[in-house]
């Protein structure tokens, strides 16, 4: 997808402007030389960024490294941030790019780790197993979604982004993001309950 191809240094102005961006003041202060403003941005966004990265990178420590790398890139590029998108969606895009770049560099290693984890995992209690089955089934269904639908669904549901921000990150119109979200949910229902009405 194109959204993954762009590097943070060549980000184009995004289509929608977030009217009241709570991070914009921090970005402005940073541009004026206030180094502490960046620390506030880190405190505000490190947790959601790590969660976003963790959906791509399956080991916690690696996800932390990638998140850290994303913030370092943001630090270098923040002075050139033009405010065409919200600071949050700008950070998310950097994080997604970093995660995908990491995946490209560690593809074999990542696949091997997942296999090892499956072999060494401890057996869950029966109650956990039922809940775990639901959770696993949901995650497995999400993993089967087409990439664009998966991206839109996760950004919307797990990251609580507005459709406007989702559209910025998915590089589509807001209406297209809404439609993709609809088909993602419909496809999940089909995968989970055998509903075959989805397109």
């Amino acid at each position, binding site marked *: 997808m194109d959204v993954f191809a762009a590097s943070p240094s060549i980000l184009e102005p995004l289509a929608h402007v977030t009217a009241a961006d709570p991070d914009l003041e921090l970005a402005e202060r940073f541009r004026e030389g206030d*180094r502490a403003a960046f620390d506030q941005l880190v405190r505000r966004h*490190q947790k959601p960024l790590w*969660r976003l990265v963790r959906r791509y990178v399956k080991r916690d420590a690696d996800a932390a490294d990638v998140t850290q790398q994303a913030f370092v890139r943001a630090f270098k590029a923040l002075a050139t941030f033009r405010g065409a998108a919200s600071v949050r969606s700008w950070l998310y895009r950097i994080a997604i790019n970093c995660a995908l770049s990491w995946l490209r560099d560690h593809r074999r290693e990542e696949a091997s780790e997942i296999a090892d984890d499956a072999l060494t995992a401890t057996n869950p209690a029966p109650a956990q197993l039922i809940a775990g089955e639901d959770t696993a089934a*949901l995650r497995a269904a999400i993993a089967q979604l087409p990439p664009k639908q998966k991206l839109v669904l996760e950004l919307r549901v797990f990251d609580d982004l507005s459709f406007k921000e989702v559209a910025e990150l998915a590089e589509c119109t807001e209406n297209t993001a809404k439609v993709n979200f609809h088909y993602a949910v419909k496809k999940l229902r089909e995968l989970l309950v055998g509903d075959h009405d989805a397109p």
Partner: protein
Amino acid sequence: MRRDDELLAAYVDGVSELTADERRHVEELLARDPALRTDEAQTRTLIDQLRSLPPEGTEPDWTAMERAIAGEVGDKVPRPWWRPSWRWLVPASALALAAAVFALWIHAPAPATTPVVATPSDAGAAPIAPPEDELATMPLWLDGEEVEIDLAADELLEVDRALLGEDDGLTPGLLPVDNLAWIDELDVDDIEVAEAWLGRKKG
């Protein structure tokens, strides 16, 4: 082709983000289609399930991560490469422009004393100075001062050509500045003609 219900999930999970038209459209569909209402309920349940999914993995030590990031980026706020430039670029450009205008004013060439001839066919091309024998005017020494003479003027023909030595390569009818020997050879009539012409010229 777009389906009517494709905004249903967005309606369920973000009705406030739909436009008034989109909202009204979905509500009309829901009002007349019981199956769609069932869809709406199932969609709502599924989205609730998705939102209640626990995050994957174990969260890191956020304070440690913050310290690590701060340590890696350092204390100096990076500046865009162009920013230090444009701050002095404006005054520097203004200064350079002023200097250029001043230099042009100081070294501006005096207006050309030799006229240039342009023919209609040369319109738009750079003017070319005519050859020496095609000069339109020529400075001559007359009555103690230099006078610009129109070479095409008929009155010059009144000067005695014999006095000018046409065989010497001089332009017929002209009295050269650099050699005034011809003055001694003028007779009274010639002097009268010359003085009369000079009088008209000074006029």
